């Protein structure tokens, strides 16, 4: 881990990760979107197969802030009543953290997502790696970390079900 990160920034980054996981595990899409920078942010969810082969197509391809907000609408307005509900539990382990200048850090973390279908058992949805560009915003004692970019690269060559929520 890079020595240039301060304890305060590290804590802010931990808080961001926690907020992200808590939002998804509660199914709170608005809270999920609020972990991204308000002005300019990107979220991608892509298979490791596509990623390794340099194939750009993703499962979710939100390359601007508007698309992130539209994904919230997909889940909360468009798809309501059609899909079989499921809950998730996300677990992450930080793998690397490097300063990228301008109060930004590049991080990688391993993730595991457990899923519990309503009326069903708990199973692994997939595992994977988050590749993040995180920015510390604000100054003095008041600052927070936000995602400029989160790229969730999932391990499963074949997903075990259709997907409603971001990874």
């Amino acid at each position, binding site marked *: 881990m890079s020595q240039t990160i301060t304890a305060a920034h590290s804590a802010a980054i931990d808080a961001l990760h926690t907020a992200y996981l808590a939002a998804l595990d509660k199914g709170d899409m608005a809270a999920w979107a609020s972990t991204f920078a308000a002005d300019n942010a990107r979220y991608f969810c892509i298979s490791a197969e596509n990623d390794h082969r340099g194939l750009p*197509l993703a499962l979710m391809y939100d390359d601007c802030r508007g698309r992130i907000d539209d994904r919230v609408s997909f889940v909360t307005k468009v798809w309501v009543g059609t899909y079989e509900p499921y809950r998730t539990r996300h677990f992450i382990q930080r793998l690397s953290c490097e300063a990228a200048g301008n109060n930004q850090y590049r991080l990688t973390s391993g993730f595991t997502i457990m899923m519990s279908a309503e009326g069903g058992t708990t199973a692994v949805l997939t595992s994977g790696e988050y590749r993040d560009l995180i920015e510390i915003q604000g100054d003095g004692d008041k600052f927070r970390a936000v995602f400029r970019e989160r790229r969730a690269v999932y391990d499963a060559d074949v997903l075990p079900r259709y997907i409603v929520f971001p990874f």
Partner: protein
Amino acid sequence: MSSQCTGNYTGKAPAVWPAKVNQIPKEVFGDAALFEEELKTIFYGDCWHIVGHFAEVPNVGDFKTFDLGRVPLLISRGKNNQVRVFYNTCTHRGNQLEVATSGNRKEFECPYHRWLFSLEGALTACPGSKEFAPDFKQENFGLMEVKSAQFMGLIFVTMGKNTPPLTEWLGEIVPPTLSTLLGGDGRLKLLGYQKVRYDSNWKGYNDNDGYHAPMLHTAFRLLNWQGGTTGFQRMTKNGHVVFEAELKAIQNNGFVNDPSLVEFKGSDPARGSRIVQLFPATVMVKHLDIINLRFAIARSHDVTEVHYAYFAHEDDSEELVQHRIRQGSNLLGPCGMISMEDAAIFQRIHIGNQTPGFAEFQKGVTSLMEVPMDVKQNDETGNLPRWEHYRKVMGFKREGEK
């Protein structure tokens, strides 16, 4: 009819196939023994099956593995640029030859006894062959090739002995729509995959993928997205369905923050939506600027795996390629704004199909005794000729039929 497979199913389910043409017995979705018969009669029988497109293996040495039912296939582009399909097994003791889903090789090597095969399937090395059986001849042990044919780069295979030629199998109404769906000439560029398993019988998947009434899709209403009325739906007697519809541009009513996602950049100005559904299990879609081939694998009576493969055209501008990537990633597929709902239906309908009774078709039914061949754009009766073909192929007798 020569373009039909023929079966002689003598199993128990369904007890009775109803005389009314708009009723499908739900028993055909949940029967493991019937699935074994379907493998023999349809998937390993006298039918053509789509297993890939040339654009997935663009360079010499590129390969892709795929399954037809439970049979592992190895699709390889040889040195003469010819694409061949082999059984993915060493000709020695039967070990699975290639384990990767795709890649590029100079040759294929079986690790068990180091038998080596060329990209064209010839056995080029087999250590210790001096001590092999007296009748061993190296030239007789090349990879087993599966009979294949292509249409604009689409790779079809068949394991049947009496499969009609591909042109006959496709018939007259499929090629025009399929050509335009494939960019006019099939010169495609692979953009990537979305792969998923559905807890659904392959027939339930196929019956509800492709075109269906737009009522399921809330997005169409929220976006005030109107389909045109000049489209058509045509079927062949051997179970294919071809659909074309006009898509009007959406009027941005403020529902989406990023309307560029649903923009139509006019890669095919005459029609917005084209769907070609080939018996038994393949659905191909050109929707807005998306070119999406869905390679389906019938894994069991309960599980269907679908590889959604997305393409651009070789001549596309960079801007159009980028647009196709955004649209393909976000609109169709197992998490797409439109198709996630379809995916939910595949699984829910499979659960519902475990109950007694029939799947009932209503919209567009004008006769209970005659399978409709002339249907309107929004009729659900477009599925019935495929069911009739399936019934005959599998040898199910209708109630009252001798």
